């Protein structure tokens, strides 16, 4: 197409059909995420779900410590920044005093599965009516690639240079399975975002989890298997393949808890 034939943005808006755009719940800004990181996809799915359910004006987001620490700049909703691991406790304080609002936390594996295990376990056990988006990329991303509680056996990281050894470091924690065992939860699933199919499945789960909170059904948690090309030292496509070939066998995708009330939401 030559320059003369190219439509201007205004002409596109007038004559064309918009098929893909930034969700209204996301801010118009650049993100700091590395190329190929799947945080951006997960942000987008949450943004789309907030738009579809019309929740933007009543949502309060609790941001974690980790790579997504600055996510409050990327969402156009009210937000607070928690201390490392404490997001479920902050969310509890917010939701208990504002039960009519939608409160979600977004936490990485170091945040939720290591330093914040007490807070997530008890928030789940109390059945706090909040939604937890748990992003598992098997590594501490922000501090540049140390071993996480979800690092795979044998995985080489900057703090397990000989690979994760179970005798020394224990086993990768399957958080979704653990949390699903607590009666206070209504919806606990594991999804990924390594290909279009898994992304679509993840999107559905985000909508369901938020609907469950709207219906007051107790804690919902989605564990996302996410990539970290930078700290895995891989190209973005290789990192996506690595999720499928290495993470999924240990962290199976699926539904670990879908209460009857959640099923009834459709």
């Amino acid at each position, binding site marked *: 197409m030559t320059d003369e034939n190219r439509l201007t943005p205004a002409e596109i808006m007038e004559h064309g059909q918009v098929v893909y755009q930034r969700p209204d719940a996301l801010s118009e800004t650049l993100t700091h995420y590395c190329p190929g990181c799947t945080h951006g996809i997960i942000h987008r799915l949450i943004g789309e779900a907030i738009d579809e359910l019309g929740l933007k004006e009543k949502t309060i987001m*609790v941001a974690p410590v980790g790579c997504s620490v600055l996510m409050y700049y990327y969402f*156009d909703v009210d937000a607070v920044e928690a201390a490392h691991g404490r997001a479920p*406790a902050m969310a509890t304080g*917010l939701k208990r005093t504002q039960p009519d609002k939608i409160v979600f936390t977004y936490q990485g594996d170091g945040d939720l599965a290591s330093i914040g295990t007490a807070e997530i376990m008890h928030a789940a056990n109390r059945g706090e009516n909040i939604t937890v988006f748990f992003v598992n990329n098997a590594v501490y991303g922000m501090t540049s690639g140390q071993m996480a509680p979800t690092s795979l056996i044998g995985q080489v990281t900057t703090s397990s240079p000989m690979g994760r050894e179970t005798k020394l470091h224990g086993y990768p924690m399957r958080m979704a399975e653990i949390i699903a065992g607590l009666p206070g939860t209504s919806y606990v699933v594991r999804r990924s975002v390594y290909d279009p199919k898994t992304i679509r499945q993840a999107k559905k789960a985000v909508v369901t989890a938020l609907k469950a909170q709207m219906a007051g059904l107790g804690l919902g948690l989605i564990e996302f298997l996410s990539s970290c090309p930078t700290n895995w030292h891989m190209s973005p496509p290789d990192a996506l393949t690595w999720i499928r070939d290495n993470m999924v066998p240990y962290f199976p995708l699926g539904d670990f808890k879908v209460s009857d009330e959640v099923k009834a939401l459709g």
Partner: protein
Amino acid sequence: MAKELWEGNQAIAEAAVRAGVEAFFGYPITPQTELLEYMSKRMPELGRTFLQAESEVASINMVYGAACGGARAMSSSSSPGISLMQEGLSYIAASEVPAVLVDIMRGGPGLGNIQPSQSDYFQMTRSAGHGDFHPIVLAPATIQEAVDLVYESFPLAEKYRTIVIIAGDGSLGQMMEPAEMPPMRPLLTEEERGDFAVRGKKGREKRIITSLFLKEPELEALNHRLQAKLQTIREAEQRWETYQMEDAEYLLVAYGSVARTCKTVIRDAQGEGLRAGLFRPISLWPFPYEHLAKAAEGKRAILTVEMSAGQMLEDVQIAVRGSLPVEFYGRMGGVMPLPDEVLEALRGVAFTHRPLQTGVESRYW
């Protein structure tokens, strides 16, 4: 309203209820547990939020969350529990949201014991968490004063968007005394909530409450703002009491329950012709330095009495800047000083710093 007999912990809880607290998050620890127990019944009665958290770490972060939403929120604990809260306190201070915390101190360090102590003076006034900040710390000596200070603490926390700590000790928490409760204050309305509160962005721009400022100039600017606020608090919020200052030759300095012991000592000392007055700081931070210096003018010496190894002692020394001798008597490990011991210490101070004899004979003979 007539005076009623109240246990300290329960009186503090009811005073907070009257003050309009909307949410209480806590964890059991002796000697403050009755406060939590009282709230567990009283708050639901009024349709307000009570939650026993899984730890003090969680309870202070629940307070943080509720406070970010503009709710009047509080927690209470005792020394080891406050240690666990220091992380959350630092975040609350940096985020500039209001919160009230009650510390019914017990003997330390470590697990220590459950007896009264004042050994967390440094923790509250100097190191309530990492970074440059101080909470307002108010130390009541009686249950009535505890009630009054708790009632004031919420508006004070909201006015400065800061943490207010009510610093008591195990004896104040556990003893019973007559006290008059203030009237029930109405809860905050939506309009009265601070313009920082995150309550969903309906009809306005989004709000972010964070303590993360990656660019140095931004974080330094936050620190300048915090320091300016602390300076305002220093100038406006110093509280203290003096007792029997007229003709006093010696000055006792003590706070909280120990100050009550000192009042007994002062009366006993008068019987043997030993004239001492009392300076009792009520605000431990901001410490009433100039007022203490003024009270110390013309005195022969100061005797600081604490249930610690001498923590407020350092503030007393700062206040008087070497202008007169500062002596110390303290008990540790949950031991309360008895009036006889303090009187003996006062006699010793009076002897050591007695007026010089004028006759040559008496000095050299």
